[in-house]
């Protein structure tokens, strides 16, 4: 079924959901995948650091003991940077790509760097806000409501056009459909 006459690589059964806000399960799965990605990055960094130490002084080598605080800080930083870059550059993290999700602004466009950074910080600091998706009548997390963003089903393999134009945001100037405020 061709909904709008354009050719789409999206399977027919998934086309009705394209552009709609995603539910809590899909977003949590995507978040879990992102967590795995960040964990892998941290482990890789730790392994690289250990190998470097071993190469410097093999005889005195022992696995470095990084404290809990450093670990959490590192994880926080890596997660923030990873999400910021992903949402800014392509609109989705690896988890979002696997699950077919995309983060868009209230205009339906990719976020700017600042917006992506703020959202990334918010999500990392307050991850439990994701659960509000299950309750929200608009499938929005706490961060989405605050930042007026949406996480939509978007199975299109390529990234759409560029991010939010810089400058003052002009609500209503873009998009044919406004975000629906809470009821």
């Amino acid at each position: 079924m061709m909904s709008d006459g354009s050719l789409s690589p999206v399977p027919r059964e998934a086309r009705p959901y394209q552009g709609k806000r995603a539910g809590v399960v899909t977003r949590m799965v995507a978040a879990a995948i992102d967590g795995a990605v960040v964990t892998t990055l941290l482990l890789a960094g730790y392994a690289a650091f250990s190998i470097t130490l071993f190469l410097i002084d093999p005889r005195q080598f022992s696995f470095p003991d990084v404290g809990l605080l450093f670990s959490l800080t590192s994880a926080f930083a890596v997660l923030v940077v990873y999400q910021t870059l992903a949402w800014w550059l392509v609109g989705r993290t690896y988890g979002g790509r696997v699950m077919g999700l995309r983060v868009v602004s209230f205009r339906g466009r990719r976020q700017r760097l600042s917006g992506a950074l703020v959202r990334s910080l918010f999500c990392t600091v307050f991850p439990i806000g994701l659960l509000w998706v299950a309750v929200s009548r608009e499938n929005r997390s706490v961060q989405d409501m605050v930042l007026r963003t949406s996480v939509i089903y978007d199975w299109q393999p390529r990234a759409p056009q560029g991010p939010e134009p810089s400058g003052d945001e002009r609500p209503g100037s873009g998009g044919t459909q406004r975000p629906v405020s809470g009821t």
Partner: protein
Amino acid sequence: MSEDREDIDPVAVALAVSGLFLGAAAGTTRRAASALEPVGRALLDPSWLPPRLNPRRVLESLARDGQRHRNALRVELARGLDALVPVVLAEILRRAAVTELVLRYVDLDRVVAGVDLDAAAGRLDVAAIVDQVDVDPVVSRVDLDAVLDRIDMESVLDRIDMESVLDRIDMEGVIERIDMDVVLDRIDLTRIVLERVDLDAVVAAILDHIDLVGLAGEVIEGVDLPEIIRESTGSMASDTVQGARMQGIAADEAVSRAVDRLLLRRRHRVTQAPSQPGDAEGGTPVHTRRGGQGE
């Protein structure tokens, strides 16, 4: 001399005189021979001469010699004539225009009228003659172009009743005897079509009869183009990933319904996100169809 008196031809007179003399001599000779026959017989067969000197035998011997000489002379004469006659005849014929003489002195019409041509033709075995004729060299020596140049085709065609000719032709039989494959093999149909056919008009006429848009739609529906695009756009669109995504969507909806039921909500959720401006500017379209979830 009077007017009606004939001139005396001396030659005729001489002939008549000699004829009188000859007649008289012949009569005299015959009478003398009959009178002298007993004398001659007695002289030829005298009984008083020995047989060796018998005059008859002597005469017979002489006659045989004479006969021998005559035969020899005849042979020699024939040989001489064989050598002489062709030369003499050729010289005579060369000097005498025989054709002219024949044309002048022979009444050819009468000669031909006296010939029974039908009977002559009836006696000719034409088939045997034709069999003996090697037509190929004859034909090869004929300058057909020159012959054709001299033929007034217009007048020939005017004299032909084409309708009756065509009526006599068994067109069905002719067509059946034509091997169309061979004919087509010998024709450069592609070149003929390219040179003689107005391809633009043909294509335009064909296109007039074809609903190209509808046809394209049927083709696209038939070939599952989206599947081809998915296969060509990366591993992230594999069946496994698509299955996970669809299961995620189903789980999302299940959770949403459960929560809505718990919260005693009656209205459906509003999940339509803002569409992306510039969809028509080359960006990948996002499907924004309002599904069953919309209010």
